[in-house]
């Protein structure tokens, strides 16, 4: 007479077929990767096609002793950095220093005049060295991540050091050689071959893999999870506002109804993931970088994906049930997205120090575990083996508690009309049912 899972499965089947059979699903399949991948693609594109136009930089040397050294340092840097050693291709612009005599009177007048030249495009920027020759300022409107400032800082420091070496009696022609940088290789930790027992040769650390792989894994997980869960909020509100929910609740319990919807969201995400993983695999093989893909972590990817989507879908269903109109639901989107947006905000901190206390603690906090642990696991060196297991235990408890609380909110809220959702009500319904 009573058949719990069958009804939830029927609801899941209907919702799933309805959602993947729409143009919105196909549109989402394309638009999500475009949105998330757009930024990465832009960086790659900019890196692949750097601006190689000459950069004219004015130099005001108020100390009166650095200009010559600066010209020498810039020439040395241009020679060392403009061309790639292997290919001979230009990879950096030519920097051209234009010495400008300091004007008497208000220094800001000269600064303004040079700034206007920068605005007109005649100069890329200008440098001002202080009276004592031990401090300098750089003026430019270059982008925040442009290498200009770092480049200028290096050149000015080289000039100052050359001047100091010369002052201390070292022949000026020898100064550049004394300042020549030592190349430091960035290598992965040495490992032993598990099969033969032999110690492997040190391998140069792949910076692309160290950055791109964890970010891509996390963003892919985030993107697919959002595809299945974000539409849930408005879909449940729509069921409620169009009076479909009561008809369904005459046949299925609120818990069955919500579970059906959550299962549909998970199935939706899994469908998208299969497509993306398949297309991604073909692309990696096509670009001959298949080795970058952390295939061994694929099972973890799916564990985290199912957990993340279940959590987000349950939250969306509960909040959607509490809303009366799609507009009210829209206002709550940020609440649903909080568990995925916070990991995105700390992404760079985690990349910088993947096994630091902050990254470890946050990745063991269940709402953030799927995204942050996935990211840390894909980084060179990975994480201690116990951490994913502890994280998984936390997720399971969190998801179970979340679904339980969400189904209680859903049951109470789904037939309520008129009142917009308040946090206090949601908390009360979750606790008391």
């Amino acid at each position, binding site marked *: 007479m009573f058949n719990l899972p069958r009804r939830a499965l029927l609801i899941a089947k209907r919702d799933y077929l*309805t959602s993947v059979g729409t143009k919105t699903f196909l549109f989402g399949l394309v638009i999500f990767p475009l949105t998330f991948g757009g930024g990465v693609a832009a960086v790659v594109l900019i890196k692949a096609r750097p601006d190689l136009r000459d950069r004219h930089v004015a130099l005001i040397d108020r100390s009166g002793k650095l200009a010559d050294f600066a010209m020498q340092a810039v020439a040395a840097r241009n020679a060392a950095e403009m061309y790639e050693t292997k290919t001979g291709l230009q990879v950096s612009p030519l920097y051209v220093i234009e010495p400008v005599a300091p004007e008497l009177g208000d220094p800001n007048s000269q600064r303004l005049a040079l700034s206007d030249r920068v605005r007109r495009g005649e100069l890329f920027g200008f440098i001002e060295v202080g009276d004592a020759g031990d401090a300098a300022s750089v003026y430019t409107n270059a982008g925040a991540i442009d290498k200009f400032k770092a480049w200028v800082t290096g050149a000015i420091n080289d000039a100052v050091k050359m001047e100091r070496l010369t002052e201390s009696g070292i022949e000026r022609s020898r100064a550049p050689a004394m300042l020549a940088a030592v190349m430091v290789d960035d290598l992965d930790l040495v490992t032993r071959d598990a099969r033969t027992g032999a110690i492997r040769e040190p391998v140069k650390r792949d910076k692309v893999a160290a950055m791109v792989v964890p970010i891509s894994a996390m963003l892919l997980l985030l993107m697919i999870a959002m595809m299945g869960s974000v539409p849930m909020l408005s879909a449940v509100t729509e069921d409620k506002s169009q*009076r479909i929910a009561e*008809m369904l609740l*005459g046949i299925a319990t609120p818990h069955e109804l919500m579970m059906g919807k959550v299962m549909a969201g998970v199935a939706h995400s899994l469908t998208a993931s299969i497509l993306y993983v398949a297309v991604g695999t073909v692309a990696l093989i096509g670009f001959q970088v298949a080795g970058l893909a952390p295939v061994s972590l694929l099972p973890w990817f799916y564990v985290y994906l199912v957990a993340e989507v279940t959590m987000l879908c349950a939250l969306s269903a509960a909040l959607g049930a509490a809303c009366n109109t799609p507009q009210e639901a829209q206002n709550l989107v940020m609440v649903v997205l909080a568990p995925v947006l916070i990991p995105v905000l700390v992404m760079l901190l985690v990349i910088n120090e993947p096994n630091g206390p902050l990254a470890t603690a946050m990745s063991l906090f269940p709402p953030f575990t799927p995204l942050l642990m996935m990211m840390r696991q894909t980084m060179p060196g990975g994480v201690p083996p116990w951490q994913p297991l502890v994280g998984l235990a936390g997720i399971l408890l969190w998801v179970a508690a979340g679904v339980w609380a969400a189904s209680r909110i859903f049951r109470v809220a789904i037939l309520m009309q008129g009142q917009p959702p308040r946090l206090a009500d949601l908390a009360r319904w979750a606790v008391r049912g």
Partner: protein
Amino acid sequence: MTAVEISSVTKTFGSVTAVDNLTLTVPEGSVYGFIGPNGSGKTTTMRMIVNIFYPDSGSIRVLGRQMTSARSENIGYLPEERGLYRSMAVKPLLEFYGELRGGRNVSADVDYWLQRLGLAEWGSRRVESLSKGMTQRVQFIAAVIPAPKLLILDEPFAGLDPVNADLVRDAIMDLRRRGATVILSTHDMRIAETMCDSIFMIFRGKKVLDGTLESIQSEYGNDTIRVSLEGGAAAVEELPGVEEIRDLGQVQELRISRECDTQEVLRMLMERTRIDSFAVTKPALHDIFVRIAGAPDSRAAHV
């Protein structure tokens, strides 16, 4: 055998008591009419029977089982506020609801009901393309596939034209003949009088009427005189013993006090005017309803 047994059930929403200590027994195989003004507790009672709402106190047994949080597949429910997935085609939608209620191979059932309610050609069309009346018939079908043992219909005739109302009425009576128990709410007293074996009226959360039409009318006695007079309603104004005059145009209904003698009323009328017709009757359900719902609190407690 009883289909529904409600014992001392109370349901409150905040400070509002929607259903107050209600006890009601619905016999198996009967058609039970729920009447009452808007907001009196009919829908809340029905939702508790279907188990959408849980009572704060008291108990409900449905088809011999104590209600739990699970749903029974033997109950068909048509809510007052209608809603269907608008982008779905009619037949797949009905099959979905049928399967959800435990039906296996419900396609033939769906075809039968679509044919019976004049929707055979609309099975492949989307719900959003249907008229309001058609949508209501589709929703009715969704409540009766597969054939339920208990059918709960909240305002099943609201918004239906007479032809469609007859179709739905015939379908309900047919289901009843096949053994289903039917609980329906209505604001149409004529439907309650003609279709229902028993009538239950709820007012401000409390039961104020419960029984067959005959027993309810008997409680009020033969206190109604239906007359057709020369001069119309003006001829009966300020007639001693008449508590209320209802002018229906060609006919006037007079409600007389319990101690008033109908022969005396007839004699007084004959003295005043010419009488075309004179009949002593029991009050209509409509009249009883209005007496309860339109009366001050003291008179509402008549039963």
